[in-house]
């Protein structure tokens, strides 16, 4: 039987508890990449050239901050566990898409000028979410749709 499981890239790290700045910088960067925190000190992303490189740079930052870090390439031994991990990652971005959709809906009631600014901000936010979305949930389509509706409203001529 051939394995259908996908390869992952993992960052195993240990950082000194103090100072806390490198710790929070790392956390912020892992979150921006959409990495799954498998355990304390173990973060995972689906493997591609970009995710691997980004984790390598984070590993370097950990070492420069006086910690230890190694990069691993691996796969989950069970397909069910892989589905579980992917579902967890999908749910994390789904929540982000939902909150973006809610903001876009609320923006319909704003004054035209402020609505336009909100649209620009939400478009940037959508790009950020998409950059960390490896297992697109149905909420993504919805977010695109709500944002397109808001854009149409912004473009509507003022009567």
């Amino acid at each position, binding site marked *: 039987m051939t394995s259908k499981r996908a390869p992952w890239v993992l960052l195993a790290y240990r950082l000194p508890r103090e100072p806390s700045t490198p710790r929070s910088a790392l956390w912020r*960067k892992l979150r*921006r990449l959409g990495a799954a925190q498998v355990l304390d000190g173990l973060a995972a992303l689906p493997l591609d050239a970009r995710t691997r490189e*980004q984790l390598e*740079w984070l590993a*370097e*930052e950990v070492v420069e901050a006086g910690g230890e870090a190694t990069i691993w390439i691996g796969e989950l031994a069970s397909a069910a566990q892989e589905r579980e991990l992917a579902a967890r990652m999908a749910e994390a971005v789904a929540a982000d898409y939902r909150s973006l959709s809610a903001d876009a809906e609320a923006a319909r009631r704003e004054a035209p000028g402020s609505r336009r600014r909100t649209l620009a901000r939400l478009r940037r936010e959508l*790009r950020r979410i998409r*950059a960390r979305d490896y297992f697109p949930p149905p909420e993504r389509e919805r977010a695109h749709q709500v944002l397109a509706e808001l854009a149409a409203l912004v473009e509507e001529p003022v009567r």
Partner: protein
Amino acid sequence: MRWATRHHCHVDRAACAWLIRRFIDPEAEFVFVDDADEVPADATPLDMRGVELSHHGGDCSFETFLRRYELADPVLWEIAKVVHEADLVDERYDAPEAAGLDVLVRGLSMVCDDEELLRLTAPLFDGLYEYRKRALLSGREPA
């Protein structure tokens, strides 16, 4: 001089290669390796984990080059902001060109090899340099 970096160059390495040829070593020759262990003894490694000319303290390799070679040209630092955001997308700088540059260089890397990528992106960085220089001198976006 010989310089070594990883295969499958993207925006940071393309920008570094341009910087090296224009400002540091016009005769630069690049070799591409898969692992740091394969760097030839006579080559200077760049943009690889654990080497000096690479990412440090949150800087991308292009920024490290500017610091290590004391290239204080403000136009190069303008380019550094774009390269940093195209490479790391961590919003340290406001560089809206970065998203476009990332797509263009990534796209090119899909249709040509590393030598070709460095050759094709050099005029792109020449143009970016000229544009940023005019913007800096005139204080507005040049046309």
